[in-house]
């Protein structure tokens, strides 16, 4: 599967492959011709990916083949032991949690998990958690606090699941509770947006000391499709909505919502998962090293003030306020 704007790149790649095969079969030396095409391919990739629109990045963030939470868990961490269940309602496959080693230290891992094929996507509910998933995450926060283990949270969800059972079991309540519980962690916490950061369902595991994001990942208050459906009553205006929402990694860095943007290989994470995962692994080790000296009080204080600061508004001069006062007796 390929994304629309990747077609010229893929076409050129297949042309190069064909040429190579042809040369080998016919015993002709096409090295220089292939060299020309390869350098053209390289510049085409650079050009295409240097100027991706926001909507194209949304597609890259959702691309099939992009490494998922479990891919990172297996590639970046050692000795992962998955731990299941929220001890109340069940075990939500849309969130994978457990213990693992990272650079010699034990960590608690929480990963939102999309499927890597249709069957797994259905099993994982496309990465959309039920309340059970957030309860499981909160259980992990408790575990991390008791044993003084850092938390690594990998964010990749279209959003919390909008369904009857989810609402009856208090979807809003558990998201709020998870935000609060995570803000209280007495251990270092690092969140990485690896794909889609879908609204409150993403933020529930995003209240970390450091929030990282991959170059082509997105983090948004609402999906472009839903936003378009509300604002223009037309979900096909999603491209316009994606532009308006400023949901890309660089946008979020400008708004100080994320602390650090991690470059992806040219062509996107789905074209070179190994390099992407190495990059994330290195960043996680650096971030955890940097947070390691901070004590519990300082970690809580830093995390609270990090989120307390966010927002853009104007302080009106009391006397110069153009907006009339609310009259009350």
């Amino acid at each position, binding site marked *: 599967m390929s994304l629309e704007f990747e077609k010229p790149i893929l076409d050129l790649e297949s042309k190069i492959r064909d040429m190579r095969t042809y040369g080998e079969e016919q015993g002709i030396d096409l090295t220089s011709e292939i060299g020309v095409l390869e350098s053209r391919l390289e510049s085409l990739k650079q050009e295409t990916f240097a100027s991706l629109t926001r909507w194209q990045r949304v597609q890259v963030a959702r691309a099939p083949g992009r490494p998922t939470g479990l891919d990172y868990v297996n590639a970046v961490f050692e000795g992962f032991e998955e731990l299941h269940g929220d001890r109340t309602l069940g075990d939500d496959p849309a969130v994978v949690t457990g213990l693992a080693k990272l650079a010699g230290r034990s960590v608690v891992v929480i990963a939102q998990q999309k499927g890597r094929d249709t069957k797994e996507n259905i099993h994982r509910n496309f990465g959309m958690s039920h309340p059970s998933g957030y309860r499981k995450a909160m259980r992990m926060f408790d575990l991390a606090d008791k044993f003084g283990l850092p938390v690594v949270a990998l964010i990749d969800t279209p959003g*919390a699941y909008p369904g009857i059972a*989810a609402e009856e079991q208090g979807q809003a309540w558990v998201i709020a509770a998870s935000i609060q519980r995570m803000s209280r962690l007495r251990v270092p916490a690092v969140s990485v947006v690896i794909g889609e950061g879908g609204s409150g369902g993403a*933020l529930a595991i995003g209240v970390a000391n450091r929030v990282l994001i991959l170059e082509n990942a997105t983090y948004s208050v609402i999906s472009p499709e839903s936003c378009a459906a509300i604002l223009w009553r037309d979900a096909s205006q999603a491209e316009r909505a994606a532009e308006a929402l400023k949901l890309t990694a660089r946008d979020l860095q400008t708004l100080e919502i994320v602390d650090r943007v991690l470059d992806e290989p040219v062509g996107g994470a789905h074209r070179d998962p190994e390099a992407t995962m190495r990059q994330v692994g290195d960043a996680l080790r650096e971030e955890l090293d940097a947070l390691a000296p901070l004590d519990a009080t300082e970690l809580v204080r830093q995390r609270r003030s990090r989120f307390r600061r966010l927002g853009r508004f104007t302080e009106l001069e009391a006397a110069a306020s153009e907006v009339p006062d609310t009259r009350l007796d």
Partner: protein
Amino acid sequence: MALERWFRRGRPTRVDDDATPAGLWMKCSACNVQIYRKDLVSNLHVCPECGHHYRMPVDERIASLMDEGTFDRWSGALAPEDPLEFVDTEAYPDRMARVQGKQGRPDAIVTGEGRMHGEPVAMFVMDFFFAGGSMGSVVGEEIARAAERAADRGLPLVGLAASGGARMQEGALSLMQMAKTTTALESLNDLGLPYISVLTDPTTGGVTASFATLGDLVVAEPKALICFAGPRVIQQTIKQELPEGFQRAEFLLKKGMLDDVIERKDLKRKLVRYIRLLLDRPIELEREDAHVAGV
């Protein structure tokens, strides 16, 4: 892809306008009885015939809860910016200017302190008639400041939520207000001061999924719509009828999500009792009978 389809089919959550209609006489939308508008207003925007709770303007809400002449407003000095330069059918600053003019305040919230049956309390009230009570940076900041100021002054906090959720026009900054308000409430938690959250019609999305459900006590008004995802979004996802009363206060009470459902006429008295019980103080109200009706 199923998910794409689901998003494409997803229609917006639109909550019907349930403001008290204009005009001298009106027909109650719940019981169809003709009522005199003035009677409805003096009855706290509750239908005298069937008890249907209409959405209440913020100023009247505050007047109904605070002792006369005691409310001191804190909010109003913060105005929204346009960090995303957001344009939909209208540029965000123009949209704001229009709503500010209509509602007479810079954003969808009023905060302040006053007395309820003599009890000093801090309060925030969200204004659903201001851009659907949506939460952007200003609403988040006002709530955060109210919580911190209440903590500074040793006051309990009462919050009245009414909101369509996070404000799209401020993008992820609106989303972050969920974390900001949550962390600011810690200043009350640190001191053991009560925060009581009252969910009114409607409370949805990112507001429900943050400060509104983090009260030490969470109560709601009768029939209030309270949800994370709106009924229409869910209906379009699952393609089946929703259960009777789904996401309404009484339904959520049964599901264990609320401490109680409280009629508007009882709200002030109940809130004061909760605060005094939590703080282990005598609960008798002065001239209690005189206050049962509310204002």
